[in-house]
């Protein structure tokens, strides 16, 4: 386990991702980091309501959720002052300007990259 990941212990994470296998992959990685997954959303409406209602320290957002962009969800999370990380199969250029300070993970990514991205996101907000 990397140094970055060690600091993530106990962090509460909301995961917005529609591919179940990738959910499992990230779940495993986050579990390794000692993070607590407070919610997984693979549907847009579900993600919106979880982004608004759940208590979490960080969100991991797939840019494309069953064909829809998750930027409105990111806006909600940003408005709550909670850091987040984008994961995407698209290039970074497709992120709107207002949201492009968030780290972007290009799929597929290694567990260490995930940890670094989360650390950067947490560091920027605190």
């Amino acid at each position, binding site marked *: 386990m990397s140094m970055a990941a060690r600091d993530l212990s106990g962090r509460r994470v909301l995961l917005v991702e*529609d*591919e*179940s*296998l*990738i*959910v*499992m*992959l990230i779940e*495993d990685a986050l579990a390794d980091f000692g993070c607590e997954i407070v919610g*997984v959303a*693979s*549907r847009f409406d579900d993600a919106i309501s979880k982004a608004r209602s759940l208590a979490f320290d960080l969100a991991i957002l797939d840019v*494309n959720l*069953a064909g829809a962009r998750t930027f409105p969800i990111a806006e909600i999370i940003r408005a709550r002052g909670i850091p987040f990380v984008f994961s*995407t*199969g*698209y*290039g970074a250029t*497709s992120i709107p300007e207002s949201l492009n300070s968030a780290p972007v993970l*290009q*799929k*597929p*990514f290694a567990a260490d990259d995930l940890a670094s991205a989360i650390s950067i996101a947490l560091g920027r907000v605190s």
Partner: protein
Amino acid sequence: MLDRNRQPVPDDPDNTLLDARPQIVKDTADRALARHAREQAALFQFTDRLYRAASLADTYEAALDAIFDTLQCRAASILRFDRNGVMSFVASRNLSDTYRKAVHGHSPWTEGESDPEPIFIPDTAHADLPEDLRKTVEAEGIRALAFIPLTSAGRVRGKFMAYYNRPQQFDQHDVDLAVTIARQLGFSLERAQSEEDRLEAQSIRAASEKRLEQELEATKRLQEISAALVQEGDTSAIYERILDAAVSVMSSDSASMQILHPERGKGGELNLIAHRGLGDAAKFWEWVSIDSATSCGASLRNVERTICSDVRECDFMQGTEDLAIFLKAGIISMQTTPLLSRSGRLVGMLSTHWRKPYEPPLGDLRRLDVLARQAADLIERARAEEFLRERQERLRAVFNSPAIGAAVLAPDAGFIETNAAFSDLCGYSADELLSLNALDLTHPDDRPAMRRLLDRMLDGSRSNFVIEKRYVRKDGSVIWVQNSVSLTHDEAGRPLHLVKLVQDITERKVAEKRQRLLIDEINHRVKNTLATVQSFASQSLRNAKSLAEGRAAFEARLIALSKSHDVLTRQHWEGADLIDVVNGAIAPYRGRSEQGRFRIEGERLRLSPKAVLALSLAFHELATNAVKYGALSNDTGSVSISWRIDRTTGRFHLRWQESGGPAVKPPGRRGFGSRLVEQGLAQDIAGEVRLSFNEAGVECAIDAPLTEIAGLD
């Protein structure tokens, strides 16, 4: 004394007769009477002939006969002062050329002298003559002469001469006879002369009138041609007029005009464009090359006027087919004048032909030169116009292209002219466009860029530009166009027109957008698939008892994923039927057992691509487990897969039920397979998945909203 017996002397250059004649004949009354009668007859005959004389020549002949008959001389002549006042022979008999030449101009009187007296020289040997004249006279064998003046109104106009080869005694009778003849001849000549003068004057007047008329006619034609040239007109009609004028100016029988095609042959070829009166022969000279044996060929060689006053004597034509055809066409003489443009370039030839040997007068040629200049101008202009017309036609064809909108605009971008394709493109008629500006048509968002490019072109920074922009059509719809704009200038270099070619590229733009989306989508799918594979690898290895087992599980899952992709690919990733997904998942196991081990039951259901992938992977995990531990791990077990759709609740129910296998023991630890089926599938189809390890056989119950799994049918 005078010898009265002399006989008329016939033409006798050798003087043989004269010498043989007896000199003295006895004078008798009878003879005197006879001579008198003969003289009277001769004078009477002379008078009669003078009256009937049709010409001066007749008059002279009559006079010479009378002189011989009456004066019995050996030779005679008639001389008159010519226009220059020189006494010149007009008729003579029995005189040598040498003598006539030697005494030409000699006269005892000056022209117009009053009341001249006849002069008789009885013997040259004793006469007071200049020495050279005496020698000339004696060389001719003359020993006696008579100079008889011919007068008109009492003034000397000429003389007649009688010559003798022996000394002669002239008596009064001889003088009277000579003066009588001279008077008669003088009157006659006066009359004939005045008639001749009248006729000549008349003929000169007629000729000059005709000449004047011709010149007037020629001038008129030249002016007409000038006028025709100034007006826009049918070029070939003007060629015809030039030919008519050439025939008229040159008084020729035929004429032809040729245009030089410098690009043909070596040194160019002449093409006959019009002719007058050449008939069938014209065909032979339709094209004339530089080595042609014709006047135009010669003029092509030396770029000078060629005149053949008689083709039968023209060096370069001898023995040629051209000559034969000229003669067959009745052409005997011709001239060719090169047509030179103002810049001195040879553009053609103007030829005229005659049916007789003929050398055209200088004046005619000068007038022809005027005509030739006009013809050259016409050819030049016709060529320039032809060139312009062809180019305009080409440009017009381009402008009227049905595929590309074209427009001519003022420098302020206001439309001046548009083609039909442009109207089709923007929806405005050509008339409506006249009151519009290119920027009016441009989508507001694209106007600044368009304005910038136009300004840069107008300030000279660039001569043309291409822009892809949007037009707002008359009906409000938006299309994408590619605009190619270039600028033309007037003679002073000021911007004159914008020329604009417009192509509708909406389809391309839509296709580009679609392609961009497609690439994004492919990228997204590929990356997600790779992440899926990453998850497979991670999970397979994490849960495996050995590396080999992990690798085998990973490979099997990868192949299952790939097969589900195959199913989707066959349907263009639009979905697949559930039955095909089930059959695809169990196919690897079905092959090595009898058909009876699987029972499949359910109505046809079209699945979404996501459901296809999720169910395929779930069935793979279930089947793998069945083969390893469940109903398919012995020879007797079977698997029932059945589903139904509850239309009232809108839910889908599927059951995987194993039976006949070994007694099932619940796994000690929940593996990836279970997780994938229970959590993964449930998440992907937003449903509930219950996996039960019942002792009688593994059971998997799937319950999902139809809307989540059903695809477009």
